[in-house]
């Protein structure tokens, strides 16, 4: 056993003396541990997704559910870039566009089946991630923001002007996933239950891809790479001093974010069957960022909630017609005022675990309290911390 563990630490000449005492194994139960509870919640969510079509299989419900899933995927990707690695990205929608266009072009212009477009999408997104990541490595905070914004616009305008991307009207007639002669569009029926194409797509593609995407991003964040991202976010110099190549860490965050967004883009192009440059405007980059921040940067449940909020709120507000963006705007401000660290912050502790788990420290960095005295935060559902030192892309650091 010990030998196995030794193997895991390659050529580390200096090893810690054995621990002086063994810590108790952390609790794993559903109600006795944070991770157990989250896992249970996740299983519940997946179950809910699976039964949804049996509750309401109307086109509308399926359509907004699929869009919401795609948003979740997108937001998980942006969360890697902004939430974990702390790189403010205002042009994230560009990767989404790359994914959508690459799969659109592959299927309509080149005539490949959709599943073959997947590797192409991934490769294209990796390339895009490197291209965008490269020049931004040395930039900090808001300079980074403008460069990413610029890239987003460049991609959109280019798509608008090129022949192969269909110009301003974009690409239409993008097929669904098909294998040999059978396509998801055909749908099927089992035991008298009819599954039309859009339900099948929702089930087998959107749900599976997104669930895998969410779990994958969560796992990456917990491992060595995730620790490197968070270290870079908190303090770049200290991260370097820990042996983390911050450039590699940042580029890898961009690449992963890009691939996630690209896959979301592919789902979107299949789901809509038509894409046009209009759907990749700056506004959408802002909306996704909003979802991530609103939900809680770096927090998987938070980001999912944020994604659902941002994608579903305009739909749920449909009945207010012209008022809906006004209401949406006010709602945003109000939510942020009441939960500045997001709806479900990464540092949240379940209320009944508060006694056993440490509470994160209040905000102490330089942008800190001005004439506010001591915050008297009464926890609502979850104990949240009003603002750790900027979790975001900024330096938050004093010389």
């Amino acid at each position, binding site marked *: 056993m010990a030998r196995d563990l030794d193997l895991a630490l390659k050529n580390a000449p200096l090893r810690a003396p054995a621990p002086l005492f063994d810590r108790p194994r952390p609790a794993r139960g559903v109600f006795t541990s944070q991770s157990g509870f989250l896992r249970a919640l996740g299983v519940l969510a997946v179950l809910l997704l699976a039964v949804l079509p049996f509750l309401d299989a109307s086109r509308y419900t399926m359509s907004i559910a699929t869009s919401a899933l795609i948003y979740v995927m997108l937001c998980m990707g942006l969360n890697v870039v902004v939430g974990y690695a702390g790189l403010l990205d205002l042009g994230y929608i560009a990767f989404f566009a790359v994914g959508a266009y690459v799969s659109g072009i592959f299927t309509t212009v080149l005539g490949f089946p959709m599943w073959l477009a997947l590797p192409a999408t991934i490769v294209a997104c990796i390339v895009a991630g490197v291209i965008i990541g490269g020049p931004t490595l040395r930039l900090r905070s808001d300079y980074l923001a403008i460069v990413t914004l610029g890239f987003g616009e460049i991609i959109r305008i280019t798509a608008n002007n090129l022949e192969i991307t269909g110009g301003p009207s974009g690409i239409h007639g993008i097929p669904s996933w098909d294998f040999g002669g059978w396509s998801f569009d055909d749908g099927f029926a089992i035991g008298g239950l009819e599954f039309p194409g859009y339900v099948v797509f929702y089930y087998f593609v959107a749900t599976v891809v997104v669930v895998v995407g969410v779990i994958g991003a969560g796992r990456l964040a917990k491992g060595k790479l995730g620790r490197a991202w968070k270290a870079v976010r908190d303090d770049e110099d200290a991260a370097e001093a820990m042996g983390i190549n911050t450039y590699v860490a940042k580029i890898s965050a961009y690449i992963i974010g890009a691939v996630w967004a690209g896959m979301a883009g592919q789902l979107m192009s299949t789901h809509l069957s038509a894409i046009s440059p209009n759907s990749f405007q700056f506004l959408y980059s802002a909306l996704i960022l909003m979802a991530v921040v609103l939900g809680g940067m770096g927090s998987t449940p938070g980001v999912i909630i944020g994604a659902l909020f941002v994608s579903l709120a305009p739909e749920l507000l449909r009945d207010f017609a012209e008022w809906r963006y006004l209401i949406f705007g006010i709602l945003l401000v109000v939510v942020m005022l009441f939960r500045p660290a997001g709806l479900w912050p990464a540092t949240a502790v379940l209320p009944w675990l508060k006694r056993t788990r440490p509470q994160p420290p209040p905000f102490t960095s330089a942008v800190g309290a001005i*004439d506010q*005295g*001591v*915050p008297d935060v009464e926890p609502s559902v979850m104990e949240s911390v009003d603002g750790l030192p900027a979790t975001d892309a900024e330096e938050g650091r*004093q*010389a």
Partner: protein
Amino acid sequence: MTALEVQDVDVYYGRVHALRRLSFTVGEGEIVCLLGNNGAGKSTTMNLLSGLVRPKAGSVRWNGTDLATAKPWNIVSSGLIHVPEGRRIFSTMTVHENLLLGGYSVRDKRRIDERIAHVYELMPRLAERRRQQGGTLSGGEQQMVAIGRALIGGPRLLLLDEPSMGLAPLVVKQVMEVVSAVNAQGTTVLLVEQNARAALKIAHRAYVIETGAVTLSGSANELARDPRVVEAYLGA
């Protein structure tokens, strides 16, 4: 005469109870020193006096005014000046601009200029570096700026939070001399120091704070001989 009176103050950071019914006084013209372990609440006390944190209970009065509710900027312009822990130099501003800011609440331009000139005389290193960005100074140089900056405001009550941190031995001595000179000119001083030996040398009285409450108090000489203080803060 008591200048500053802190009585039964409670301060919380969220759930952390940082000060627990803390009481102490500082007399007009005194140097009073606060000793205590890390996390005892010394800096919190300083922030309380300069209005950066608010007490949940208790009263803080300085020359009859209530510091518990006053705005920090009004506190400063009434002559209570706080040299904070960690120096808080304005990093992209030059040394000179940092000093000018120290005189923000002094209306008389000529007076500011005079005082700055004297600070340069006092700490020639700063004069050498007057155009250098504050953030690029060495740790000790920054500490000098922080102290100089406070002097330019013309303090009546000077709060110093670990002024000797990161300073070379020679400079520590100088700083302590400056402090007692400032005091000799009539400024009341409240001093927080880890370098207890140096601090007790210039202080008139001292308090020991542990976990947010005063556990010992007395004249500096008394405390310097108290075995508990010797053991914890001075070393044999």
